[in-house]
């Protein structure tokens, strides 16, 4: 059963159409990420769901209740939606404990205390209960913000770029931690981010957004492996878009023949991920290494193909090729590619 349903939501600010006809469903306990470049309307989408903005058209349904739609607009405080803000928006005049208990004002005291304690334990901050937000590290502040949003047991948790104000070194660890906390709490969550790695690694499903529209929805593997458009392919990870001639289940390109997921014919473009290519050092190779980006466990090579185009290839870092080396690039075995526009 769907927990949250967005039906054809649009919102304009003056002449700017921030959100256009967005339709999306989130199942109970699911973690969905909205991925898009800055300015694509993803934060507006979040504010529409939370109730800080009213949609021009369309409706938002949470559980069985329509919270926004024709002739109906439930104020944010009645929506049972928790939100983790980009800069956390912790109340600086309240302790960690009071911040977390803030949304529990209507519960009786025993329940309030129990929920607060349990939520603080969930995020591992019971020892910081008496601290003030200004005394916490960035990661701790984030966990308090998360705890505050989770404590009232909302139907949906919204996270607005939750990792953007953290150091890059902290991010990966906290990402995992936040995911575990959300799973532990069995929360239904919608996260917006512009960081594709974050979205791919964290979400059950991914909605790629561009200029106010959702261009593709799917599981991370699917969005990455079968991009719906050239833009989506380029935004979610690195990609080589190759021209070729398709006939049946294969496509012939300047780098060789690839299998096609869906049979086609005629002139097409295919999206080939850098790891779907392989190369070997050959004096009479068809490409030259122009640049090399060492990433630890793997290496990204930028090649100049003899046809003149630049080709990206990603390989394990077991064997390294030097810049300037002549190499032979070809499709990796058993690779299936997707047609794009």
């Amino acid at each position, binding site marked *: 059963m769907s927990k949250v349903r967005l039906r054809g939501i649009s919102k304009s600010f003056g002449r700017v159409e921030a959100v256009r006809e967005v339709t999306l469903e989130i199942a109970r306990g699911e973690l969905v990420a909205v991925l898009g470049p800055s300015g694509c309307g993803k934060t507006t989408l979040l504010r529409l769901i*939370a*109730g*800080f903005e009213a949609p021009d058209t369309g409706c938002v349904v949470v559980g069985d209740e329509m919270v926004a739609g024709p002739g109906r607009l439930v*104020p*944010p*405080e*009645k*929506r049972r*939606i*928790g*939100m983790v*803000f*980009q*800069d956390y*928006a912790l*109340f*600086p*005049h309240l302790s960690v404990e009071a911040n977390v208990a*803030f*949304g529990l*004002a*209507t519960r009786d005291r025993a329940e309030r205390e129990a929920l607060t304690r349990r939520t603080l334990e969930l995020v591992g901050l019971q020892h910081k209960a008496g601290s*003030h*937000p*200004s005394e916490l590290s960035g990661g701790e502040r984030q966990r308090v913000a998360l705890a*505050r*949003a989770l404590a*009232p047991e909302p139907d949906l948790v919204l996270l607005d770029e939750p990792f953007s104000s953290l150091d890059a070194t902290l991010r990966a660890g906290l990402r995992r931690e936040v995911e575990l906390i959300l799973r532990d709490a069995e929360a239904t969550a919608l996260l917006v981010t512009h960081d594709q790695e974050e979205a791919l690694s964290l979400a059950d499903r991914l909605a790629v957004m561009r200029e106010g529209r959702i261009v593709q929805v799917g599981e991370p593997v699917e969005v990455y492996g079968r991009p719906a458009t050239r833009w989506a392919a380029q935004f979610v990870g690195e990609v080589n878009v190759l021209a070729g001639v398709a006939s049946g289940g294969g496509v012939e390109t300047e780098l060789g023949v690839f299998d096609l997921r869906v049979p086609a014919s005629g002139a097409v473009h295919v999206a080939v991920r850098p790891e779907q290519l392989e190369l070997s050092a050959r004096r009479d190779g068809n490409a030259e290494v122009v640049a090399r980006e060492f990433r630890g466990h793997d290496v990204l090579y930028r090649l100049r193909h003899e046809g003149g185009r630049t080709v990206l290839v990603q390989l394990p870092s077991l064997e390294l090729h030097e810049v300037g080396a002549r190499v032979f690039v070809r499709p990796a075995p058993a690779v299936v590619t997707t047609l794009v526009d």
Partner: protein
Amino acid sequence: MGLRAVRTDGFALVTVAIATLVAAPLVGLPLSFLTAPGGLSEFSGFVPEALVATVLLLLGVGAGTLVLGAGLALLVSFCDFPGRGWIEWALVLPLAMPGYVFTLFALSLDVPGIRSTAGAICVLTLVLYPYVYLLARAAFLGQSRTLLEAARGLGLSRRRAVARVGIPLARPAILGGAALALMEALADFGTVNLLGVRTFTDAIYRVWFGAFDRDAAMQLATLLVSVTLALLVLERLARGRARHAQLAARGDAVPPVPLHGPAAALALLGPLALVALVVLAPLAQLGVWSVESLAGGLLPPEFASAVRNSLLLAGISALLVPFAALLLAYGVRTSRSRLAGGASRTATIGYGLPGSVVAVAVIVPLGWLERRIDGVAGTGLLITGTVLALLYAYVVRFLALAWGAVETGLLRVPRQLDEAARGLGADRLDVLARVHVPLMRTGLATAALLVFVEVMKELPATLLLRPLGGDTLAIAVWQATSESLYETAALPALLIVVVGLLPVMLMIRLSGRRGAPLEAAQGAGAWAEELEATPA
């Protein structure tokens, strides 16, 4: 480098000299308890009476300005109604109305019960609430939208989100504003004296002129200073808690909620009635009387000399005080020594102090100096009977006011400019004259304007220190009002209020219009800081 820098550093020395000149008299005040231990015994009834009256006044004005100032700030910050842009600024206008002028208006109307502590509380609340209003409004407008949204997302209605998040976050600013208003109330002499409320300032005046007992006056002044200092400490404590509020000042400002129908009408008419009562009606009444007295030739012969004295004193002070402040601030900037920094902090404590205290404080060292000079040269009353003592008192009292404006201007001049000019062969005096002063014109002009207006309005120090025949407009207003000659008081009072409107208008212009609420808030906040001008 420390010692050598101080020894060779002319600017640091100037800084220290100014600080000493300003602070020494104040440090001397408590010494009167040593030199004349029984000084107050003759006036033993004065102290408890003054203490009770002062405390009652502070409690009343504190509660009044808090409710009125914070309430109005809430209204204009979180609600939208037709005319809000005008109301927002009209509510600042009472700042231009000195307490004794509004008292003149209230007395002329014969408001029942006005000659009482309650009456004084009402008058002072009505003219002092803008301090709370300005600081609270700046704090509310500086709050980030996300904090209130976070509260609403957690189940609070708009009203309760404001109550539980907006107001607590603004609390330090609100209390800071109330402390400023209380310091003004404590310094007030005209209102309490005219209404017969026997507070400390009034007691000092009576001891000074009624009994010519300087030791007792100094001791009363010391007691008044202790109350003021206690308030200053409270304000500092409130400000210490304010730091976390700045952490919250990120993101967009809170969008106000539109009011409709009767609520909108009330939101417009309530504040309008307040401003009409405190500013417009008195101005109209004073205007009518002024025209009548001008037409009827009823002006007292002293009027012309009062105008001349006021303009001279205010003009000279407007040059002298910002200049001293500039030297002080520049000394701190170029020498970067801890000594100069400490000196500037010492030199700016005077502003929180009542004018009567400053007057009593400067007279003693001046008298001592005068006797020394007289002993050598036989010059008689060279200083204390002349305008010099008064100007000295003005420097002590208003240096901090000018310093705030000057320092703000100086901070906006990047240090690289100093260094560039020095690299091009300018010495530090050159840099001051050719780089800083031209760049700081606005800051210096603001300082001069603020000092000019404050000196025009100043009553207690002028009253205690003026030389013979040295009546000013403020004194003319006070004298005529105390003799119930309201029509005679009208024209000088009108002039004072009109001049007082200048800096208020300037602030409104500097703060810009709506649409840049954050900037406006900062403008208002900065101005209020300048008013307060006690260095952090």
